């Protein structure tokens, strides 16, 4: 399905819970920044951190926003959360402008901020019970506490919790109001594997309930596991979007890699001529090979036939497809900027 078709399928008569159209956000740089980067300045002497980002999030889907550090993800989200006004473009959160939103709108939006935003000198359950008082029909604090294992460390003030424990409290704080829209900034950062599994289960449950979820992460493995739809942004602009499958398909060079370890020497010449064109065989280390390219079942057949004819039993043999991480690095560049 093309991006256009996918869009139509997503939209299919529904209204997005969050719609951002051509968002622009500027900031006033310091003098030293202005002097070092004159080419980035607008006529007014400002810098555009977000230069026309658009995205939609529909009820019951997890939308992942990907971008390198400084790409404009957090700024975009903080405009959508009503923490900053936009300098251009339109934002609609459940049909309202999030900047200066009513308490009634805020009650339908749950936010997990990157830095947590939790007071330090209080015990987790006391905090959650306090936040629950802001809502008419809050979720059960006891259930959330149980689910996220917060009771294990409730005797400790938030100041003394580990990073992963704080993350769990921040997630509970975002969920306590039974939101319709959920913003999760790096929800799995610093979590142990057990907590991560629980957090993923909770995110999937919220999706089942019809909650619109916006998630940012740098862990592309997590993004690949959770995302219904992905937007990739770079330098304050949209670069590409689609389902994970689409993104993997549309940038399909080097679609697969077979890695194997064999004691005897192998070369591409051992393959039938018509299978040599679209692939490369590299020896990464003595006896360790990678066959990379647009692999077909025929390639696998040829490889195993080779093993049979030369009496090779490979000590390892792995087929891997391209991951979202490969796509992301290709699109947003492999260099650190």
């Amino acid at each position, binding site marked *: 399905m093309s991006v256009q078709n996918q869009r139509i399928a997503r939209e299919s008569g529904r209204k997005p819970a969050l719609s951002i159209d051509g968002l622009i956000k500027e900031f006033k740089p310091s003098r030293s920044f202005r002097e070092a980067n004159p080419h980035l300045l607008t006529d007014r002497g400002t810098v555009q951190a977000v230069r026309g980002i658009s995205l939609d999030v529909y009820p019951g889907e997890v939308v992942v926003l990907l971008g390198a550090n400084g790409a404009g993800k957090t700024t975009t989200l903080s405009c959508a*959360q009503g923490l900053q006004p936009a300098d251009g473009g339109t934002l609609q959160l459940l049909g309202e402008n999030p900047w200066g939103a009513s308490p009634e709108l805020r009650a339908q939006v749950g936010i997990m901020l990157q830095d947590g935003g939790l007071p330090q000198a209080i015990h987790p359950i006391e905090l959650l019970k306090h936040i629950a008082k802001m809502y*008419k029909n809050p979720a059960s604090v006891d259930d959330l506490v149980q689910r996220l294992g917060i009771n294990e460390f409730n005797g400790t003030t938030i100041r003394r919790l580990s990073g992963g424990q704080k993350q769990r409290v921040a997630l509970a704080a975002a969920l306590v109001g039974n939101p319709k829209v959920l913003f999760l900034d790096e929800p799995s950062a610093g979590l142990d594997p057990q907590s991560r599994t629980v957090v993923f289960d909770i995110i999937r449950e919220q999706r089942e309930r019809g909650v619109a979820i916006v998630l940012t992460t740098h862990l592309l493995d997590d993004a690949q596991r959770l995302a219904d739809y992905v937007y990739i942004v770079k330098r304050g602009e949209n670069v590409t979007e689609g389902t994970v499958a689409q993104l993997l398909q549309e940038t399909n060079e080097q679609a697969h890699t077979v890695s194997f370890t064999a004691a005897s020497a192998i070369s591409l010449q051992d393959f039938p001529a018509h299978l040599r064109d679209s692939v490369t065989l590299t020896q990464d280390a003595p006896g360790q090979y990678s066959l990379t390219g647009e692999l077909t079942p025929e390639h696998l057949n040829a490889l195993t036939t080779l093993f049979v004819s030369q009496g090779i039993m490979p000590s390892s043999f792995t087929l891997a497809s391209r991951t979202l991480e490969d796509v992301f690095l290709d699109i947003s560049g492999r260099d650190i900027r």
Partner: protein
Amino acid sequence: MSNFAASPSSRIIAQGVYETKAMLKNGEQLMLLIAFPLMALVALRYTGILDSWAHAHNVERFDVAVPGVLALCVMSTALSGQGIATGFDRRYGVLRFLSTTPLGRGGLMAGKVLAVVMVMIVQFVIILVTALLLGWSPNITGLFMSIPTLLLGAAAFTSLGLLIAGTVRAEATLAIVNMAWVILAGVGGVLIPSSYLPAFLEWIPNVLPSGALGEALRAELMLTRFELLPHIILLLWTLVVGAIALKKFKWSA
């Protein structure tokens, strides 16, 4: 009719109670809010520091001391207590987070003001009971007269505390409000009337919120007299500083 958010009053009361508990649970805050004013009360009761003013107005030493200690309580809670709490909340992103809940920015500020008033009530009960036990005979009319003055003083110092907390780093807020507390408590006309100063310096404490609050409260509780000028000074501080705070307050660190 709201379907999702709790009512505005219950949100603000919840935040007020929460912040009151937070202030009263913090050891350092308790020193500032309760212990130091009590120490000041006892010291002024058993030393002759205020005797010259007491003789001049033909009242007891304690009658000069109690209004000053109440003014000190207002300063401790509104300037130092709420200033420090807000400064650290801002640093840890708590202001940002709470402003995204149904409480919102307005509710958060209203909750903070409510907490100041509630902590002041706790302080006043402790101070007044202690003063009574130590032999103070209260001026009931003066006590009722002082209630609006105390609230106005709280407004002026809360504006000042929030301005500092909302514009400089948390550590700087801590340093500034504690320094201000020490200086104003000592020579700001709170506990000791400004007339101890040479005549040409006497006006300085009187135009500060500390001296204005001390003067107004002493006039009411010692002499059952309403002084207009210190009230105008407190109102001006509230309006001017409050307006600057509204404009300059930054919600995130």
